[in-house]
């Protein structure tokens, strides 16, 4: 073993750096022990404790560098000195910028850009804490997440109401503010019609119909699927209605909701009646979105609209039940509302016999997978099965376009539609989209139509057509 102590006068390095350098020397093969340090009193005693002769550094002071190495031979000592030079002259490349780490909460993300809206799609059990923080910071909240306990929704909406903040959701799929869509939303032309809706696809269908009739949309405020429950009492719907009444650039207000519990419906009706602006209330289950859009046109002094449609190339089809394969809950229930008077009883569940309209966007079918508006896998499977099912004569399905939805749904559906038509089934598509949607509404329609489907921009019209086909050639 050789012990070597060298002193480099005036060669200052900071102590932390030198601790790293010492470590580098200790890792050299053949080196038993090493100390690289400024010759302070502490380090001199450390040198002695490590068994080096303190006399070797007797003249050194705090501004002098000590390099002490104990090794099994001259080669190892030399290697240690090479390691020393490497370590002391080591250049570290600048490692990235000085950017802040990504924000970890909605609150800090919002603070980073001065957001006025926080959009949450975290699991429902965690949404309340994030939403409350946003409200306390004076921001509006849209909660896309579902499965938020109702008492938390009530707390959030009460706080929002008291502080002039809108709580859109939980389970709010669609909102449009000044033309910017949040969640599933269609590209709309600027306009002076604004809407309030508890139903996301209801808002989307209304946007699509008005767009096709040449009417622009200013705001579409989603309030969440539970807002019209008795417990929540339309808190956000009433607040939004009030705000649109005050909004100088809104000339007409549309209220869309799922069938409300009666006392709540009354409250919304009374609030609508109290507005000075014209208000069109479309309570799903009492009327259709098409009727609602018609009322809007009347109120604006426009003629009734002929909503776009693409007739099926072939009107022949095998007899059988109507099978509705939906991704939008409101579109599914509206189709049932329209078709039931013609078809009679309509089932709602996968596997139901007879006529059945199923909402594959329902929780029951979305566990562990993306919403069918994004990922069509489940509906593609059901479409393929319906094509082979001789009891099914007519397949009715919705295709929802817009931001957030599947980027190009028609080509995925087309081969299966072709096959269903070849097998003798009729396919009717309710295409919910606007001309400005990124998927290209008319291009999507043409792909579906060429595959053999009839395509309707009005969901009610698609349902009527499916019901007609289901009765004109009904099974024995």
């Amino acid at each position, binding site marked *: 073993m050789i012990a070597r102590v060298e002193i480099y006068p005036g060669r200052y390095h*900071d102590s*932390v*750096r030198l*601790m*790293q350098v010492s*470590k580098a020397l*200790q890792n050299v093969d053949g080196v038993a*022990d090493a*100390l690289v340090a400024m010759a302070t*009193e*502490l380090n001199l*005693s450390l040198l002695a404790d490590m068994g080096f002769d303190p006399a070797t550094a007797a003249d050194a002071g705090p501004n002098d560098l000590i390099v002490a190495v104990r090794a099994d031979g001259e080669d190892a000592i030399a290697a240690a000195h090479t390691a020393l030079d490497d370590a002391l002259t080591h250049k*570290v490349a*600048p490692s990235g*910028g*000085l950017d*802040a*780490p990504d*924000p*970890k*909460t*909605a609150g800090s*993300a*919002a603070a980073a*850009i001065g*957001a*006025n*809206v*926080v*959009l*949450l799609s*975290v*699991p429902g059990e*965690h949404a*309340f*804490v994030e939403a*409350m*923080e946003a409200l306390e910071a004076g*921001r*509006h909240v849209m909660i*896309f*997440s579902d499965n938020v306990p109702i008492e*938390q929704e009530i707390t959030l909406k009460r*706080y929002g*109401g008291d*502080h002039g*903040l*809108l709580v859109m959701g939980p389970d709010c799929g669609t909102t449009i*503010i*000044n033309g*910017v869509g*949040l969640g599933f939303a269609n*590209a709309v032309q600027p306009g002076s019609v604004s809407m309030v809706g508890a139903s996301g696809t209801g808002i989307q269908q209304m946007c699509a119909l008005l767009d096709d009739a040449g009417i622009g949309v200013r705001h579409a405020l989603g309030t969440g699927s539970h807002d019209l429950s008795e417990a929540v009492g339309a808190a956000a719907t009433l*607040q939004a209605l009030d*705000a*649109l009444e*005050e*909004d100088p650039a809104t000339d007409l207000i549309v209220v869309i909701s799922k069938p409300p519990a009666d006392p709540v419906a009354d409250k919304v009706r009374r609030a609508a009646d109290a507005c000075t602006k014209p208000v069109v209330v479309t309570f799903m289950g009492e009327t259709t979105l098409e009727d609602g859009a018609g009322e809007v046109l009347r109120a604006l002094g426009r003629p009734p609209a002929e909503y776009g449609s693409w007739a099926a190339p072939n009107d022949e089809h095998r007899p059988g039940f109507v099978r509705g394969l939906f991704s939008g809950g409101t579109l599914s229930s509206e189709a049932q509302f329209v078709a039931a008077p013609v078809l009679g009883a309509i089932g709602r569940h996968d596997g139901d016999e007879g006529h059945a309209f199923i909402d594959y966007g329902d929780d029951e079918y979305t566990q562990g997978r993306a919403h069918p508006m994004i990922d069509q896998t489940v509906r593609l499977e059901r479409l393929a099965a319906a094509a082979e099912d001789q009891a099914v004569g007519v397949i009715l399905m919705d295709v929802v376009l817009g*931001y*957030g939805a599947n980027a190009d749904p028609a080509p995925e559906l087309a081969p299966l539609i072709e096959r269903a038509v070849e097998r003798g089934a009729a396919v009717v598509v309710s295409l919910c989209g606007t001309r400005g949607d990124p998927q290209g509404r008319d291009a999507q329609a043409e792909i579906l139509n060429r595959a053999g489907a009839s395509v309707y921009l009005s969901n009610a019209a698609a349902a009527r057509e499916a019901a007609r086909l289901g009765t004109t050639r009904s099974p024995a």
Partner: protein
Amino acid sequence: MSDLSHLLDAEPIVATAGTDMLADSIEQQGSAVSRADWRPPVPGTEEALAILAADGRTRAANETAVARMLAVRPQLVDVTVARDVFPDMTDRTFYHAGPPITWERASGPMRGAIIGAMIYEGLATDPEDAEAQASRGDIDLSPCHHHGAVGPMAGVTSPSMPVAVVDDKAGSGVAYSTLNEGLGKVLRYGAFAPETIERLRWMDSVLGPVLHAVLLRRGPIDLQSLIAQALQMGDDGHNRNRAVTSLFLRELGGALVKGADAPVEQRAEVFRFVDGNDHFMLNLVMAAGKLGSDAASGVPASSLVTVMARNGTDFGIRLSGTGDQWFVAPAPPVDGLYLGSFTEDDASPDIGDSTITETVGLGGFAMAAAPAIVGFVGGTASGAVRRTLAMYEITVAEHPMYQIPMLEFRGTPVGIDAARVVRTGVRPQINTGVAGKVPGTGMVGAGLVEAPMECFTQAVNALAAAVR
């Protein structure tokens, strides 16, 4: 209130948490989005977080607590003797760092420091005698934090030791700390060698009285102003106190030179001692921190962390809204750099009250100010900056006086919110020294440690139980 005009008059500015798809689709429309890298909270805190959110007082309570923390103006007013300022201190009482601990559970450096202090106080003749008495229960142990005091590493404070008195120029609080012994074989790292005891005797016979006389002559020294200046000179206030110690010596200089109360040799010794110890000011920075920490205590529903402290066995925290309750978890090992041939095998788990610095926006929270010690954080200055930036996520304020040049003089992140810690999983990071685990060893290194999540999980649940 129904006016939503600030929502409806312009395009929305949106922040998102959750699926990227929703943020993508807003960007697709040409609007800017700020995305949170969101993750679920630490398991076992979901219900407590919901209770606190529903209670609704926590945000305002934290603002109140941090405002009190930041309102103190710590100044060093005196150096006196422990038994004179702690009325409950008997001849056999030893204050220590961290949450309460018994001799049986005490770590190596804690035992070493108690042994050393017993020898220093003349209660024991040698280490064996001290250990025998301590294990018979013939001494009283009590946390410094229970007496308005703080101590670095083992933090052992015994009746004869000189203590600094730091009071609040803007209020009525007062906090105490021992004086720093320097590095090497020192009591706070668990050493009890003859030189250790000898140094302690010199400190009570020369250092304490000289500083007492000097302070009487020149008046109080404003600590906050020194700390604020030092952050702009490369200190973090915890692991690097070279600049603040230099500034302190300048404050002291005139009175020390002029002072006729002590022989010139003694005054020269004091000058050399302070000058030769880059950590001299650590204890005073800690006492200044304790003043802020105490001021922030006792705000109902506040999840602000007022104390983080370790005794080498347990890591403990306290919240403003949960009174004197400690929330403890095993003290973690330190990720460190080691002196000489010491390695992590020689290291005691994390120890000391010096985490009071992180609690008030210094130390690991001011790492970006201290490029000289970036070796602890992977060796790059940008790494140090990122460490500090990460702490803004779990704090509720930015320090009005402690500023970081590298961050365009942004105030350091201050006021740790325990709820944000469990929500984000981001743990407070601490710069610290490392003591040898064998009693009597002394310092073996320095490095970084993160506060254990378990403390925060317990604390948030206790706060939720308190507000319910």
